[in-house]
C-alpha cells in the first residue's frame, strides 16, 4: 500500500500500476520517451486552451441574444410614440412582448441547453429580419453591420457548442 502513493500520473495525478505503459485515465505515455511525454502534455494543454476560447465564443453568442432583447425592447418602447391612429396598438404590444420574451428566454436557456437555445435564437432572428425586409425593404441596410455581426456571433456560438462537446470527449472529461 505504501508505494501506491508514489505512482501518480504526471499529467492527471491519478494512480497507476507500475506495469502500465499508458495512464488509463488520461492516456499519458508513462513509459514513453521524454519527447513523447512532452508532446502529449503540450497537445492536451492546447486542447484545454481551445476549450476556454470556445466557451468565450458561446458566451459572446449568449450576449448577442441579450443585445437583441435589449434592442427590441428599446425600439418597441420607442415605436410606441410613433404609433398612428389607425394602427392596432394591442396587436403591436403583443408582438413585441412575445418577441422580447422569446429572445430573453433563449438567452437565459442558453446557460443550460446552449445548442437548442442558440439554434432557436438564430432561426428566430433570421426570420424576423427577413420578414422586416419584406415589410419594408429599406430596413435591409439599416444597421446591417450590427445584424451581420450578431448572426456571425450566433453561428460561431452554435459551432463552438459542438466543438466543446468534441474536445471534452477527446480529453475524456465530463
Amino acid at each position: 500500500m505504501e508505494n501506491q502513493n508514489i505512482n501518480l500520473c504526471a499529467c492527471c495525478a491519478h494512480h497507476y500500476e507500475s506495469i502500465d505503459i499508458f495512464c488509463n485515465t488520461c492516456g499519458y505515455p508513462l513509459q514513453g520517451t521524454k519527447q513523447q511525454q512532452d508532446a502529449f502534455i503540450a497537445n492536451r494543454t492546447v486542447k484545454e486552451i481551445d476549450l476556454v476560447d470556445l466557451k468565450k465564443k458561446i458566451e459572446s453568442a449568449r450576449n448577442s441574444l441579450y443585445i437583441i432583447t435589449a434592442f427590441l425592447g428599446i425600439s418597441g418602447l420607442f415605436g410606441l410614440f410613433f404609433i398612428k391612429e389607425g394602427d392596432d396598438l394591442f396587436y403591436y404590444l403583443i408582438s413585441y412582448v412575445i418577441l422580447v420574451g422569446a429572445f430573453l428566454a433563449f438567452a437565459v436557456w442558453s446557460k443550460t441547453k446552449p445548442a437548442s437555445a442558440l439554434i432557436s435564437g438564430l432561426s428566430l432572428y433570421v426570420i424576423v429580419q427577413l420578414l422586416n425586409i419584406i415589410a419594408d425593404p429599406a430596413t435591409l441596410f439599416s444597421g446591417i453591420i450590427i445584424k451581420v455581426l450578431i448572426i456571425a456571433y450566433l453561428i460561431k456560438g452554435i459551432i463552438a457548442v459542438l466543438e466543446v462537446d468534441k474536445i471534452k470527449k477527446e480529453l475524456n472529461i465530463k
Partner: protein
Amino acid sequence: MDSQETIYRLCPNCQNNIPEQNNFCSICGHAQNHEEVKFHGKKRQNLNQVALFFAIEIIICISAGLISEHTILIALFFDLIMALTAILFFAYSWQENKFLLKWPNFSIKKVSALIALTLIASFGVQFLVGHLNQLVFNKDYTFYYTYAFHDYGNYIMIISVALFPALFEELAYRGFLMQRLLNIVDEKEAIYITSILFFFIHFSMISFFWMLPFGLVLAYVRIKTNTLWYGIVMHFFFNLCACLIEIYNYGSF
C-alpha cells in the same frame, strides 16, 4: 481486493483485456471512447444539412406568404413544393431514415387513444383560436373561402390542409430534421429544437401557446415509438378537425 468485481473488456486496438471503467488502454494508449469521438467529429456535417434544410423551408414559406392572392392552384403548388423538399431531404439519407417508415408494434388501442386526445385538443384549440382572432384582430380568419368556389372545394381543402401537411411536415420535421439532430444533440434537445423550428415555420406568433406543445407531443411520440405513423395520424386528425369546423361554420357538404 475488488478485482473480482471489475468487468473487463477487449481494447478494440490491441485486443488486451482492460477494466471497463478505464478511459484509455493501459497497454497501447488507445482511447476507449474512440467511437464517440468519431461520432462527434461528424456533427458539423449534420449541422450544415440542418441549416440548409431550414433555410429552404424559410424561403418556401416566405414566398408563400408573399403572394397575397389565395387560390386553390397556388395552395396546391406550395403543398407540392413542400412535399418535394421533404421527400428529397428524407431520401438523401435513406439508409438512416427508412426505419421510421415501418410501423412496429401496431396497436389499435394506442392509435384510437391518440386520435381521441388529438380531437379533444383540436376542438379546444379551434375554439380558443376563434375567440382570440376576434379579440386581437377583430375579425375572423378563415382559409375556407380559398376553396369555397370549387365544386370539390371541401375535398381539396381536406387534402391540402389536412392530408399533405400531416404527411410531409412529419416526414420533414419528425423524420429528416429529428434524425439529423439526433446526430448532433441528445434526445431531449432534439425534441425541443424540432418543435421550436416547427413552430417558427408557421409564422404565427400568437399560436405559440398551442403550436409548441403540439410539436413537443408529436416529437415525443416519435422518439418513444420510433415510427412516424402515430405522428402522421395525430397531425392529420388535428388539421382535419380544423377543416371540419371551417366547413361547419361557413359552408355545407
